[in-house]
């Protein structure tokens, strides 16, 4: 047993507990510092994970193969820590809108992070379920945190009910897989999965597990909750839900599909193609009439789940690495957009697109950030979103010889991108060319949030212009499935 592999997880859990206890000693006006301290601690962990000292970047497995530390796990752990750092910056700015329990808000974000770290390393259905529940249950609370607002409570209840339903599907699926094969470990299951391919009960089990994961990533037909929850939840929660929770769903999806049941996955090529195509179309078409910014981004996140599924559906190493690269770009882009929303709507009741009117006069930095984020989501060069979409489409087209369905899928994805231009540019138009600008008071930005915004902008450009480093990391991580 090699428990030192879990250094990051243990540190993050300890940080969560310390933040919770810090509430006792910190006076109310100093609560902000708890958030910045968490940012500093997580940055330290990120540096350690990159520096290669300690056991953080070592490969290996622990707890009878339940916990695995490989390239993929390390890639996703860094991803989750970066996401949590940027979300915590946002949470500090948001703290004046939370009625009570600011320290708890920070510490719950950190606990959700610990669940994501475990998800990145889960190599066993028990760990998969426990990690997913840790993430989801924390998000139930984070979603309904502004309980003075009815929309926040409504979002929390909706997420709770649908989340519990999807969990029950997943646990039922795990039970069926266990009942037929007697294996829970992904590698052990892969060794015997081929002989159960004809067992309908086994396939049913795998399908039910995919239902649970499909809910996490908001793929069609399990996307119903996303717009309502994105709209109602506090903005930092929404950002973390859009990036962290979705990425956790994807890492588990990759592991289940390509490590645990690769033979079944190969048979389900058409299913994956269809789900990916419908998800892209649904997200983009439903986003068109939206006027609420967070709801619009909710639909856009459904569309992006579809784009990311292109990488899964391609069933190839290049598809998997393109998915990882796209997720990295998506992280900076989406958090940039939500940070701007969080800052602009500080004194407003709603998150309507009209809130952005005149933003270029109120704060040029925020206006350009939002413009870049929308352009990156739409896939305009030279930003991260363009290169990510290019890689995904390339991976899909490479497989065209295997199945002509891939050409249709690539065409659908392109159509989705074209549709999405309309609503993303609607947001940009609202910033620069609004007719009736009511509020022209400049927006004051604190130093730390400027840093966070600049990190996001740098990330978008860096991934778009110098993709080599990130692409190498993604390729390295995707090698896990090649073995």
């Amino acid at each position, binding site marked *: 047993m090699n428990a030192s592999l879990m250094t990051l997880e243990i540190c993050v859990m300890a940080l969560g507990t310390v933040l919770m206890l810090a509430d006792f000693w910190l006076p109310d006006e100093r609560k902000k510092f708890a958030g910045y301290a968490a940012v500093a601690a997580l940055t330290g962990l990120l540096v350690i994970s990159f520096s290669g000292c300690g056991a953080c970047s070592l490969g290996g497995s622990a707890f*009878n193969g339940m916990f695995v530390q490989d390239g993929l796990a390390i890639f996703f752990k860094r991803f989750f820590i970066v996401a949590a750092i940027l979300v915590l910056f946002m949470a500090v700015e948001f703290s004046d809108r939370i009625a009570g329990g600011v320290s708890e808000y920070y510490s719950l974000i950190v606990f959700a992070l610990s669940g994501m770290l475990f998800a990145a390393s889960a190599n066993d259905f028990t760990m998969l379920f426990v990690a997913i529940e840790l993430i989801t249950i924390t998000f139930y609370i984070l979603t309904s945190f502004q309980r003075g607002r009815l929309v926040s409570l409504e979002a929390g209840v909706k997420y709770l009910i649908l989340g519990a339903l999807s969990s029950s599907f997943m646990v039922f699926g795990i039970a069926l897989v266990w009942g*037929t094969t007697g294996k829970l470990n992904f590698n052990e299951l892969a060794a015997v999965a081929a002989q159960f391919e004809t067992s309908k009960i086994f*396939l049913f089990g795998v399908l039910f597990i995919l239902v649970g994961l499909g809910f996490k990533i908001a793929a069609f037909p399990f996307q119903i909750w996303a717009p309502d929850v994105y709209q109602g939840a506090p903005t930092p929660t929404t950002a973390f839900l859009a990036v962290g929770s979705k990425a956790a769903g994807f890492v588990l999806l990759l592991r289940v599909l390509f490590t645990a049941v690769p033979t079944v996955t190969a048979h389900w090529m058409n299913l994956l193609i269809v789900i990916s195509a419908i998800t892209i179309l649904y997200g983009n078409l439903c986003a068109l009439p939206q006027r609420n910014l967070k709801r619009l981004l909710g639909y856009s996140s459904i569309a992006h789940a579809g784009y990311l599924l292109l990488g899964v559906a391609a069933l190839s190493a290049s598809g998997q690495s393109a998915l990882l690269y796209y997720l990295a770009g998506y992280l900076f882009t989406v958090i940039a957009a939500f940070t701007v929303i969080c800052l602009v709507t500080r004194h407003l009741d709603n998150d309507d697109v009209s809130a952005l009117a005149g933003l270029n006069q109120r704060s040029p930095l925020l206006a350009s950030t939002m413009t870049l984020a929308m352009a990156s989501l739409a896939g305009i060069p030279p930003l991260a979103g363009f290169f990510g979409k290019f890689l995904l489409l390339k991976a899909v087209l490479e497989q065209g010889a295997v199945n002509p369905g891939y050409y249709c899928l690539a065409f659908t994805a392109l159509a989705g991108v074209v549709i999405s231009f309309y609503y993303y540019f609607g947001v940009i138009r609202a910033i620069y060319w609004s007719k009736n600008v009511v509020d022209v008071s400049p927006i004051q930005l604190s130093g730390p949030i400027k840093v966070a915004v600049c990190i996001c902008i740098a990330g978008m450009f860096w991934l778009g212009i110098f993709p080599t480093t990130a692409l190498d990391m993604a390729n390295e991580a995707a090698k896990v499935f090649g073995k």
Partner: protein
Amino acid sequence: MENFQNLISETMLPDMMFYVFAALTLLFGVLVVANPFSRNPVTSAMFLVLTIISMAGLFVLLHAFFLAAVQVIVYAGAVMVLFLFVIMLLDLKEEQHRKIKMVAIIAGLLSVGTIVAIFLKSLHATNLNAHASPVTEGDTALLGKLLFSQYVLPFEVVSVLLLVAMVGVILLSKKNLK
């Protein structure tokens, strides 16, 4: 306990008991949602208790004694008390008089019918005897050992989950928003 185990393993009793408990589970389950005599939610909750207890009987037949005990103590005991509290706290006068919509009935029957059909078909297609499922032995000591050796990591993560849930409940139910 020894005698009882001998009795149920030697005779045809287990088979018979299975049908009795399965029938009771189904019967009480139906009475929870569609009781022709009463639409009182408390009655429904009481039938849910009976459903859970008859399911505990099924667990005993599978030699999963620990699960059976948990089923009775946690679900029939703790969770049901919670249910009853919630039912009594809510004002359910309107619910009692509400008519169930035809569309809801049809949709429900349709989805249940589909799931049952698919399940029967897959059960039919699968040879259950070919790979016998692992023998479940509901020995509490063994379970405890497994929890603290092979499954210690998920067990510890669940403890964090419980901490988070506890903090969440306190936060969301605190009386005054300061």
